[in-house]
């Protein structure tokens, strides 16, 4: 019996980790600046490619993954400086600009790298509970997702940067008047967001085929999680991921991946009818 319970938990953890890791970066950028980064998938792709490239050079996997996340973060800061910065007053245009960027990056990668890159296998290791065997790496991913949430909690709730960032989020003009360098806060937040996207790509790189269009595999999950979650990562994205993971897990188990995805989308469309601002609006209101 406990084996069945663990199996359900394992499936839930798998989907939950996927949702959190793919959505966290997008949610931070949206929460701080009200901007949806349409090139989010391309930062995920970037993280995956850097990881695989470094591993093929002989760098140990965990170090390669950290370096990949850092690379994506730095590229993100650059992109913020060159492009996104101009559009904080025009959020819809930022959507278009980053989408243009996404097209350029994906298609250039197809031109330059081509479609085939030698992948790295999933790290081996499995364990058995009852009669079932489970992959250890999937649990590592779940651990990483929880660690990301914990890390974000510490950064935004316990550090000086976090205080200023939250102040900027609530009222950018006032924060600026009080001496916060909001431009720099935005750049760093964007960098954290894209760095998390890179981390997502880095963590999933061993489990999937690398193609320049792989970002598209993640964007639906990240979009719907952010739509349901709303502007707050900790109070919105996390509960949204729990909720969506339960729906998806139930449908995946009985009907397969694609029905799981469709079910998730339908749930999201039904929910925005009643909660257009996302779960965080409800939870934040309750908390006050």
């Amino acid at each position, binding site marked *: 019996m406990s084996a069945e319970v663990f199996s359900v938990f394992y499936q839930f953890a798998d989907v939950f980790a996927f949702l959190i890791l793919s959505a966290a970066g997008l949610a931070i950028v949206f929460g701080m600046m009200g901007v949806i980064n349409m090139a989010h998938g391309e930062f995920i792709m970037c993280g995956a490619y850097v990881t695989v490239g470094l591993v093929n050079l002989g760098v140990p996997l965990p170090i390669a993954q950290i370096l990949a996340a850092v690379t994506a973060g730095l590229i993100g800061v650059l992109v913020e400086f060159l492009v996104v910065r101009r559009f904080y007053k025009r959020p819809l245009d930022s959507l278009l*600009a980053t989408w243009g960027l996404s097209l*350029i990056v994906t298609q250039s990668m197809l031109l330059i790298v081509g479609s085939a890159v030698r992948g790295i296998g999933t790290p081996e290791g499995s364990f058995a509970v009852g009669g079932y065997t489970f992959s250890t790496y999937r649990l590592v991913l779940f651990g990483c997702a929880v660690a990301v949430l914990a890390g974000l909690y510490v950064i935004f709730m316990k550090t000086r940067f976090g205080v200023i960032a939250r102040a900027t989020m609530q009222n950018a003009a006032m924060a600026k008047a009080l001496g916060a360098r909001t431009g720099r806060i935005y750049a760093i937040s964007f960098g954290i967001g894209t760095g998390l996207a890179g981390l997502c790509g880095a963590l999933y790189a061993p489990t999937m085929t690398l193609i320049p269009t792989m970002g598209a595999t993640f964007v639906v999950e990240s979009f719907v999680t952010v739509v349901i979650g709303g502007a707050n990562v900790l109070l919105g994205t996390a509960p949204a991921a729990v909720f969506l993971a339960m729906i998806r897990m139930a449908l995946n188990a009985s009907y397969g991946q694609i029905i799981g995805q469709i079910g998730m989308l339908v749930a999201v469309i039904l929910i*925005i009818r009643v909660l257009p601002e996302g779960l965080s609006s409800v939870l934040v209101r309750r908390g006050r």
Partner: protein
Amino acid sequence: MFKLLEGPQTLGRGRMFWACFLVVLAGALAYPLFADSYDVGNFAYFLIWIFMALGLCLMWGYGGMLSFGQTLFFGIAGYGYGVLAINMGGGTATIAALVLSVVLAMMAAGILGYFMIWGGINGIFFGIVTLSATLVLAFFLGQTAGPEWHIGPARLNGFNGMKGMDPLTVGDFYIEGSALYYVMVALIVIVYLALRMLVNSGIGNVIVATRENPQRAEMLGYDVRKYQLLTFVIGSGLAGLSGALYTSWGQFITPSSIGLPAAAMPIVWVAFSGRSDLTATLIGSFLLLFGFQTITVYSQQAALVLMGALLLATVMLAPQGFVLGIGKLVADWLRGRRRGDGDVVAEAGRLQSEES
């Protein structure tokens, strides 16, 4: 009723404009007499996408609703046409299949639009929810390769796409080649003029008022949600028309015309052209499609990189659109040369008094 062809919501007025319109139309009608049938077929291919662009122009430029879901409805109607044409057995029934598939796309738009608009989600989320739905449809159709995925005798065929449906047919006459071209030209003229009348009518004014300020429009007593839903259904229905015509044109459709990067294309055309005017969208989309097709022959990726670069350049340099900007410059220059600068202001004043 024909007075509505000109008005405050559309650029282009007066004899000069309509003379140009007739010249272009005459050129379009005469074109198949001079070109070989392969070129005419290609030309018809560009025209297929114009409906989708005009629909997006209506939703985004006039209604302020940035839908990323044009290819979603394109796909619904495109696959819808295929399934219906195969199941209803070709012949004149294909006309019914065309109509029904567009109706199907509009119903889907009505349902999706109801939840989004009555839920009251804002500009950005409107975009990403429609895009999510689009991508999910593309993923779904992509994995329908197995023989168990069929509707009647119509196999969906996964990534390889659906084929085997008849093109549009009347009796024994297949509407292909230059016949299809003439049908497209006629449809574009009808849709273009009808949209001009729509946006200059009372309904169009409410649509524009909602874009400018939803609260204000609501305070004036309009249920803006109904107008938004109407706009969304019409705009998406036009994408559906493109989809059904596309399937009929090539007698096949694949999920790749729904997912990325196809979903970005209508956005690029309309943004580059100038979303706030139907004529600019019509001209700009045609030019971009022509350019895109020319480059695609050499490298599809390079053409798509160029599209991305155009989108980025448009929002950074000319957020109102390049074609519209150039058109306005030319118009100002012509007017300025004819009558001097003071008259331009007088012209604007006249426009105001006409409205009131």
